[in-house]
């Protein structure tokens, strides 16, 4: 592959995107004809935003793009597709109740006077499917009857119909078995030979090394490097992704770490969480790190009984006793609280007052004989609003009018009147601006000083390193390792987060192509 034989297909320069804060800035990148460019980075580094800009789903705030030598400014995904820039998203965009053939040609079914030309549809579908090695499947099969891997291939096949010069694959192997991954790689090689350029987004470094020629690493919305992938080892790439800056320091105060308040023993469910065990002491913050999809939220939901575990149990109390937890009601009775990641969907009654939201879950303390005492309710809310410094006009203000940080405090405030010894936090600072984040950190510190045991899940490694006493790393559903404060490094933590997947990749390499796993 000499440089002269390669022509640029797509180039972006100075691309940036700002929502409330910049999520992407100053990206310069050139994609060559027939190459596979790996795009990687930590959660939230800007991979998805960049690919959505190229795919026409997001309009950039700054910068411009060139496609095949002409200015490229797609106003919509449809326009990008018409020009031959296609994107396969993580969530499949197929209709499970229609056949493979119908899905492939949904936007352009061969028909006469409204009647579908079945014969042509079938013939065209067979041809399109052959391109991605789906020869063995009958085009009349319903998509819903296919395995997830085959569905992914159908989605790719659909994007190859018509002109396809640039294909963006966003975490294409997330749901595939080892054999399906092999199949996908084979097809990628074939597409490359046809001159299709591919942007391959993944955090599975082993896979990237196999399939891509160059790698682009994003960190905090900036491009850190674009280099031939062969020049880097896994360790070097991890370092590039994380960067070297150290987080800010925060003083959470002096805490007395007491006895074990929560012991998780071999908890597991449906392949998402596998045999996870750990202890948390009162006064301690135990962080849980891992990549998106590693099973972090699922683990918290199991502890809380929001989902029921297939295996394992938890122990709480002093002395520790096995707690049978089949529902959130049981968890609350055992002094466990969950503050969910999705405040709007699972935490708050959005169109109701701060007062009503704090009261929910504290009814016993503000009512007698089933009748709510309005004064008590207001007093309770007032107490929490003051204690947590919730910025609001009054306790009657609707929570939908509050900022993210203050909404989070309302959810937390709901639990503080109760005797919760164990509090589980799922992404407590997601969608919260920097100033409010420190408020939440301070609050977590206060909670530990009250002798509570905290478990904090976060995608932000620096946040965990800032506030936690210990960090457990989940990878592919397993607790890979637990690190103590002062004996961890960002590199080690991140390497552990990738470890579970690398094991799978190693298995994949052992299994000869064609062997079912």
């Amino acid at each position: 592959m000499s440089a002269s034989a390669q022509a640029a297909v797509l180039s972006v320069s100075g691309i940036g995107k700002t929502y409330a804060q910049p999520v992407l800035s100053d990206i310069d990148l050139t994609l060559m004809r027939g190459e596979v460019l790996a795009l990687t980075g930590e959660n939230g580094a800007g991979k998805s935003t960049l690919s959505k800009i190229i795919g026409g789903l997001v309009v950039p705030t700054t910068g411009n793009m060139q496609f095949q030598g002409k200015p490229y400014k797609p106003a919509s995904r449809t326009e990008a597709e018409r020009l031959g820039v296609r994107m396969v998203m993580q969530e499949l965009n197929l209709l499970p109740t229609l056949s493979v053939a119908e899905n492939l040609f949904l936007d352009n079914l061969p028909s006469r006077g409204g009647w579908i030309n079945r014969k042509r549809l079938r013939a065209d579908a067979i041809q399109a499917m052959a391109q991605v090695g789906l020869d063995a499947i009958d085009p009349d099969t319903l998509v819903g009857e296919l395995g997830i891997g085959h569905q992914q291939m159908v989605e790719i096949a659909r994007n190859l119909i018509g002109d396809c010069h640039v294909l963006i694959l966003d975490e294409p192997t997330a749901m595939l078995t080892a054999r399906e991954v092999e199949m996908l790689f084979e097809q990628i090689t074939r597409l490359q030979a046809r001159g299709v350029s591919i942007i391959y987004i993944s955090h599975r470094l082993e896979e990237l090394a196999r399939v891509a020629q160059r790698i682009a690493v994003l960190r905090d919305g900036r491009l850190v490097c674009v280099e031939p992938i062969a020049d880097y080892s896994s360790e070097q790439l991890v370092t590039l992704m994380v960067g070297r800056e150290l987080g800010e320091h925060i003083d959470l105060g002096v805490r007395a770490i007491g006895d074990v308040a929560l012991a998780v023993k071999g908890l597991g469910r449906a392949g998402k969480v596998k045999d996870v065990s750990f202890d948390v002491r009162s006064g301690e913050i135990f962080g849980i790190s891992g990549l998106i999809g590693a099973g972090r939220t699922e683990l918290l939901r199991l502890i809380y009984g929001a989902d029921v575990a297939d295996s394992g149990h938890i122990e709480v109390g002093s002395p520790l006793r096995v707690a049978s937890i089949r529902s959130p009601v049981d968890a609350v009775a055992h002094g466990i609280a969950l503050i969910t990641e999705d405040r709007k969907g699972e935490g708050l009654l959005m169109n109701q007052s701060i007062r009503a939201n704090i009261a929910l879950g504290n009814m016993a303390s503000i009512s007698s004989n089933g009748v709510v005492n309005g004064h008590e309710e207001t007093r309770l809310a007032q107490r929490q609003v003051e204690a947590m410094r919730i910025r609001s006009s009054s306790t009657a203000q609707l929570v939908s009018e509050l900022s993210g940080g203050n909404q989070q405090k309302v959810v937390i405030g709901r639990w503080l009147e109760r005797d919760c010894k164990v509090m589980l936090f799922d992404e407590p600072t997601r969608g919260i601006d920097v100033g409010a984040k420190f408020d939440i950190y301070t609050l977590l510190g206060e909670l530990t000083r009250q002798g509570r045991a905290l478990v904090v899940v976060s995608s932000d490694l620096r946040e965990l390193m800032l506030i936690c006493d210990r960090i457990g790393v989940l990878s592919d559903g397993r607790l890979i390792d637990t690190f103590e404060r002062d004996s961890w490094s960002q590199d080690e933590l991140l390497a552990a987060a990738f470890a579970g997947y690398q094991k799978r990749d190693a298995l994949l390499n052992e299994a000869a192509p064609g062997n079912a796993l």
Partner: protein
Amino acid sequence: MKTSTSTQALPATGKRSSNYFGLGTYLGLAGALLAMIVLFSLLSDHFLSYETFSTLANQIPDLMVLAVGMTFILIIGGIDLSVGSVLALAASAVSVAMLGWGWSVFPAALLGMACATLAGTITGSITVAWRIPSFIVSLGVLEMARGVAYQMTNSRTAYIGDSFAWLSDPVAFGISPSFIIALLIILAAQAVLTRTVFGRYLIGIGTNEEAVRLAGINPKPYKIVVFSLMGLLAGVAALFQVSRLEAADPNAGAGLELQVIAAVVIGGTSLMGGRGSVISTFFGVLIISVLAAGLAQIGASEPTKRIITGAVIVIAVVLDTYRSNRAKRQS
């Protein structure tokens, strides 16, 4: 969506948004009602009379108590289509107990209410246990309850006589005990909705059931109780009707569910759940009843009555949606 980079709360909009039923809502509904009364009294000389008033007061208690139950059902995001049939079922049970088995009034009335409560509990339990939309479950119960009513009465209207008549005989100003009972039920229900833990949980469940569950509250029993309550109130309505007609008709209440839902929705209770008021529902009942009485007075034909009533329902919902969308945009 992040809206600010500071920790400051957004300023309160002053409006309490659309879920809050305050004086404004009630005044709006009362205004609509008043406008209708004025309009009909201009169109017909006989409208503004003692007769119209006493006829209305005599007829609406059934609708009032059914609408109370339906308000609760809609607040938790459900719907119950079986109320008309359940009413007939309760009436039939009363007639069988009294005429067939020679029971006296009170045990028979209790039996009727028990049957209706059971029917509601069945709807609620199936809905909750298998997470089936209550729309479908209650549609099935609608058919079954009607069938049982026919079976019990051999599809014939049973004349019970005047043993229940005291319930609907006016005691003063054309107002009967049944109207007073219905009014008390409305007041009690509004208090339950706004002042009790039960009421709070219902609104919470209708707003965001998962949030309620994750707050450590099991929503299932509350949902079932709401359907049982709906059944019980259908039983009460059945007694009112038996008292007024002095008979138990297995065909009673056919299509009544639509009238009940219409009254509740005109009152401004959301079909999406989480938002509602029993007092507003009472206004809805008055609006729909005055409309029917007024149209009859001015000699509107049956088809015309139905077209106009239908249009009023649609307009009420459109206005309500417009209002809540505007409130949403402002907040």
